[in-house]
């Protein structure tokens, strides 16, 4: 086990520059450009492509835990990225650190369980299989890897909420500010690097998958008037 682990650590060290430096830029660049282009030329394709209509029961038990889990986890990552100091302040008391980690782990497990149920549903329900595309399968595999590596990190490289603030946040900020510096992450275990590279793979593939529905989540609904009337020409 140790041998394998050190071998993988070495491997990922070779890949530090392509994975930790080149990939993020390529991915974000692709995402922004293609998403805008797709919205402009193929607006019709922006849809959550729900399959609830074809199968209702398994849909609930797979889609709901997956979405709630992933939203909590993503929010956690964002908070840690944007305001690392808040997290470190919170974690100063070990009790609170413990609560945070367990909560995050639970959300991660909900995501993974949901994803596995989604895969099972899409494999076994023949009607749902009809509306499952190659891009759906690629996405599901990537998300399974993402959730799997994430949970493994929570277990094998614990207290991530603390070391994220110390090493990942500064590195991400260096990328954002266009003065990339990978020094603070080169020493991280291979599992973390894999999780990281896979995340950017998902971001890069984002505009080629149904993930685009995240961008059209309907917030204006919450404050618009109930009825909508459109006139041919503005009155």
């Amino acid at each position: 086990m140790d041998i394998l682990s050190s071998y993988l650590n070495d491997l990922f060290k070779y890949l530090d520059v392509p994975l930790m430096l080149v990939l993020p830029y390529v991915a974000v660049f692709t995402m922004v450009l293609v998403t805008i282009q797709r919205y402009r030329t193929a607006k019709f394709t922006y849809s959550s492509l729900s399959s609830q209509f074809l199968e209702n029961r398994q849909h609930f038990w797979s889609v709901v835990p997956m979405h709630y889990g992933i939203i909590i986890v993503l929010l956690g990552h964002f908070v840690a990225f944007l305001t690392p100091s808040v997290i470190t302040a919170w974690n100063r008391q070990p009790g609170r650190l413990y609560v945070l980690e367990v909560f995050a782990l639970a959300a991660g497990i909900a995501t993974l369980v949901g994803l596995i149920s989604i895969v099972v549903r899409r494999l076994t329900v023949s009607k749902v299989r009809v509306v499952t595309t190659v891009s759906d399968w690629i996405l599901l595999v990537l998300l399974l890897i993402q959730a799997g590596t994430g949970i493994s990190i929570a277990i094998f490289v614990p207290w991530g909420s603390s070391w994220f603030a110390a090493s990942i946040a500064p590195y991400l900020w260096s990328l954002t500010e266009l003065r990339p510096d990978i020094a603070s992450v080169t020493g991280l275990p291979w599992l973390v690097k894999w999780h990281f590279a896979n995340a950017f793979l998902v971001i890069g593939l984002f505009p080629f998958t149904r993930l685009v529905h995240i961008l059209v989540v309907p917030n204006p609904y919450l404050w618009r008037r109930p009825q909508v009337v459109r006139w041919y020409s503005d009155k």
Partner: protein
Amino acid sequence: MEVRAQTSMVFHLDKCIGCHTCSIACKNIWTDRRGTEYMWWNNVETKPGTGYPSLWEDQDKYHGGWDANGKLQLRSTSKAQVVANIFHNPSMPTLDDYYEPWEYDYQNLFNAPEGSDQPAALPISMITGEQIDIESGPNWDDDLSGSPIYAENDPNLAGLTEDQRRQLFAVQRLVFFYFPRICNHCLNPACVASCPSGALYKRGEDGIVLLDQKRCRAWRSCVSACPYKKTYFNWNTGKSEKCILCFPRVETGQAPACFHSCVGRIRFLGVLLYDADRIEEVAKTDDDGLIDAHRDMILDPNDPEVIAEAKKAGIPDSTIKAAQQSPVYQFVKVWKLALPPHLEYRTLPMLFYVPPMSPVLSSKNDSTIQHESDQLFHDIDQSRVPIQFLANLLGTGNESKVRYALKKLKATRWYRRAVTVGDVDMETARRMLSEADCSPEEADAIYRLSALNTVDERFVIPPAHREEAVESTEDPMDRKKSAGFGFLAAPKRGL
């Protein structure tokens, strides 16, 4: 007062023969694409029956329409619930509530290996292509009144006595009528109000309710919110779709396909002017006052004050003129013969139904069948479709409005029979008319429009003036010799 024009409809149930021509006309034009095979924007149900999708009137099951406990509120969702339920819609009907569309494997007739049996064309699912057992269809209970699985579960039977039920279902006296349904193009549409993306909208000029395919994101709220289940989910494109009242036809002065093809000539289309300021107030009225309130908000197109307000609101003269000639106005407001379906859902539907006359209960005495009585309107209360059933369907549970319409229909018939056949005496006929709140002139007019109508009397469609409207937003010359305006790409399913 804010006057708006609404393209409205009347279906005369007494004349529907249940031929489904309307459904086929619609299907051939609009829903013969992949993903829409199961959709019937126009469908014809047998009543009593459970309908399509099965039990659509059971709002404890589907939570469609509005609740009005002080505040008007969608039954299927609130703003907060939309957020929580966006991943999984708890009151969404699934394909099983409609039916799994199928075709037959005709190739097997040619390709089957030689054997001792004749090959058969077995049913295969139009979704998966796999062999299936057909379990239901869009009109599965057609003509099946009296069937314990379908008719007996009709939600409109609520409140009927055991006796009335027996009379409805006695096999030897089987009785039913047809109930053709399309989108009601409501004034307070639940589908529009529920859509998180704001993809659904009501057209200001003619009130047709449409669904913007480019804005729909498959959140599916409209499907559960519409109490009539007239928005459908296209499982292939991942977009909802609904009846568009054939707006490309209506804009060019033609009646919608289902109206145009109706062999029973039961369908009427015309403009109603209404007061848009009162929508909320009317939708909140309690059940007993609902029908009157709904009628009240429809304005008299001959009233000079209404005409002035309509002009002020930018309604073109041609539309006002069409409203004055509207057959729908006659049936709904002047004669009060046509009633909205399930107004208690509070979406304020703008499709109205003339209730059907049904055969009279007859009793057998010494083997002569008797269905005469001294009372003039006995057959209304003793008709084999109990009036309470019709009241549940068209009268918000209240019998009086349905009885009023049926009495007038009966009196008109009796009067016209006295005029043309002469085998009933005119004095009784006139007495019936006066008891039914109807003058001989009115009876003649009802008779004319119901029985002798022409295409131009049935469909009074004002010009849409769409060409002028387009000029204000786009230059038509830009598109000369090209594919035209609007949605120009194929509706291909996204990744």
